[in-house]
């Protein structure tokens, strides 16, 4: 996935990738990555858990705007199946510009 990401960034489109295997991202070095220690097939979490999906998307977009150094991997704090998303605070408008 990171190889594709690099080609997209190369044409002048800013990219963010979600990773579930940190080793792969370290090797491939995409421009920006958020990492989750979650099972294969579940980059946005569990089926039907919309608050979880929203939180991952928001954190990916925050990283897209906030990462300043090429190749950065941000480890997201969300644990698999033990997280309460009711208290999740999405990024402010200023963090997304």
């Amino acid at each position: 996935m990171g190889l594709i990401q690099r080609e997209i960034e190369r044409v002048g489109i800013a990219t963010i990738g979600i990773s579930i295997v940190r080793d792969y991202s370290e090797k491939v070095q995409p421009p920006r990555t958020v990492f989750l220690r979650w099972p294969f097939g579940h980059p946005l979490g569990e089926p039907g858990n919309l608050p979880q999906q929203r939180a991952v998307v928001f954190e990916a977009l925050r990283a897209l705007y906030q990462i300043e150094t090429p190749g950065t991997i941000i480890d997201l704090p969300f644990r698999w199946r033990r997280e309460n998303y009711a208290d999740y605070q999405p990024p402010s408008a200023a963090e997304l510009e």
Partner: protein
Amino acid sequence: MNLTRFKNRALTRLATVLPGLKQRFIDAYQPRASAGEIPWIKPAKPLRQAKLALVTTAGIHHRTQQPFDMNDSDGDPSYRALNGEELFNDFQITHDYYDHTDARKDPNIILPLRPLQEMVRAGLLGSLAQTHYAFMGHIVGRHITTLVEKTAREVAAKLKADQVDLVLLTPA
């Protein structure tokens, strides 16, 4: 289905319930390492004005499209263009290297169209592209070159032509 495909699918199901197996899958597949400068461009616009597209390697596609080729052991480096408005009405996942039981129940866990559509309605995201792209992932051997030098570049050019500002990529 041949024996190799059967074995791959059975193992992927086990890997979802036995986290220890995930490491075996990780060790068995090694992506190509990159060297040199990392491509880099700052987001062109604030999110509330930007157009975003999704690119996934989860092997999802419209049921009417040709499935990815699962019989080539080097993988299938081709891609499918996805219509974001229609995809979830009739989709298929062709990918033997992960368990898609949950993704079939809710494809937003591999391609988060619903939360992004919500963000557009809320005015947080400018717009969502109509066309998104799916690859299959697990590309090895001779097809890595095809992917990097041909198909990934084709998709990048199409996204650029569609005036996409931001791309979110999801694996499987």
